[in-house]
């Protein structure tokens, strides 16, 4: 990201002149007070929002130059956990989690077994046929995470993935992200939780009113002037 800004017609300056580079395979946190623009920053990263100014590169390519189909392809290599989960209400948990696989045309017996396995792993094995409304907030969150990682994304963007679960499960989820990270997935986690930030020694991007204000000690991998992959 190079000097990226986002304005809404009603509210200018949601993101202001943010420059950052996330090397492939890195792990970082995004933090800041409510309304600072964390969700908006992630939205930029999953091409859910067009920067009003500045350039945005993903996988080494300027997104402005990509066709809509190419952007769809870029998105298919991302996994996103929404702050509000966004599970599709009339579909079962199984179908929600399997959605990215189906969209990629993967529906073999092996793929189905893999969905079951992942549901078991996040502790939702018994709820595969339940509808999202029958689940607790924490269970929905785990379903949303399972959906985000099912297609083995190159980049995982998670918005408050531990906001609705107790610390134990929160830690377990972060460990899952670490596992994925070790397998090469770039991970970005937006969070309020200071305890998480303290427990995990990863670079932290601090946002305040749309600006990057501070870099945590381990932020060496995230240099403001660098222009690179993301």
């Amino acid at each position, binding site marked *: 990201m190079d000097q990226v800004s986002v304005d809404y017609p009603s509210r200018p300056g949601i993101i202001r002149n943010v420059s950052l580079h996330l090397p492939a395979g890195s792990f970082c946190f995004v933090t800041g007070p409510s309304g600072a623009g964390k969700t908006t920053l992630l939205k930029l990263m999953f091409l859910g929002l067009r920067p009003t100014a500045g350039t945005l590169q993903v996988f080494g390519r300027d997104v402005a130059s990509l066709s*809509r189909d190419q952007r*769809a392809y870029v998105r*298919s290599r991302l996994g*996103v956990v929404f702050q509000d989960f*966004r599970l*599709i209400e*009339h579909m079962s948990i199984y179908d929600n989690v399997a959605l990215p696989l189906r969209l990629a045309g993967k529906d073999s017996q092996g793929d189905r077994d893999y969905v079951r396995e992942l549901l078991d792993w996040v502790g939702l094995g018994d709820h595969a046929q339940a509808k999202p409304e029958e689940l607790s907030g924490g269970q929905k969150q785990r379903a949303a995470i399972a*959906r985000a990682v099912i297609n083995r994304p190159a980049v995982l963007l998670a918005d408050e993935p531990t906001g609705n679960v107790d610390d134990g499960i929160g830690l377990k989820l972060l460990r899952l992200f670490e596992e994925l990270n070790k397998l090469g997935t770039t991970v970005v986690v937006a969070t309020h939780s200071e305890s998480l930030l303290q427990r995990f020694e990863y670079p932290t991007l601090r946002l305040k009113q749309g600006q990057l204000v501070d870099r945590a000690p381990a932020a060496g991998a995230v240099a403001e002037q660098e222009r690179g992959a993301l």
Partner: protein
Amino acid sequence: MVFRGQSAALMLPVILGLMAVLATFFALQTTQKVFELQESIGLANSELTVFVPSTPGLTPSDTDPAVKRALDLLHNSAGLGRIEVLSREATRALIEGTLGSAIQPHVPLPSILSVKRARRGDLDVAALGVALDRAAPGSLLDDNAALRTNLQAARAAEMAKGAALLVTVLIVVSITAALVIGQSVEMQGEVIDVLYVAGASDRVILSQFVGFTLRSALLGVAVGALGGWTLQLAYWPRVLSEPNTLLPLQAPVMLVVILLLVLASVGSARWNVLRKLKRTF
């Protein structure tokens, strides 16, 4: 189906069905009128009328020699069929009907001969007229040219009116489908985000909406067309007594109407969905 539970969109088959009732009814009304005009044109084409002025000084019981000469000529002309001399009463009725007032009893009536044209065979109407005038001076040959022109103009007007009504309904259908499906796209914004993020292309999302529109349209339009046909049947029960002639006439009209309605709704819905998707990044 990834998108579901949109009450507005569920109204789509109902709205399209009602439009299909109207479109089918109008189109079949036009078909009926054009068919009936066509029958009249055919009749006008197949008949000639010959007026022979009465020879002065004959008593009613005498055979008019002018009429006899005209009949001889007609019988010997190629391309003609049955020839009929109208009775006095029929003649009086026809002339009064044309002139619109009672004829004085002492005014001599012309004789009127009604002549069928043969199905096949060329007939030179102008030459026949000249020959008739020679055989029975002052006689007139009417080949219904004026009537035919009127009927043909009426037929063209009916077709234009029918086409205009159909186009109007198609426009309404297009706008309705585009609005309803557009509304549903707006309401499904979050699900669309999820699909995009899960790697769906525009084509995948579009196909969901187009598929829904197509199913709605097929269902609504098929039922509506049947309703429109039934309604029109009340105006034209003749279809039931002559199904072999009239059903093959109505079927293609209905098929075209159904096809146009489905195409209009799916096409406009597709256009509007794509337009809205293009607004997303």
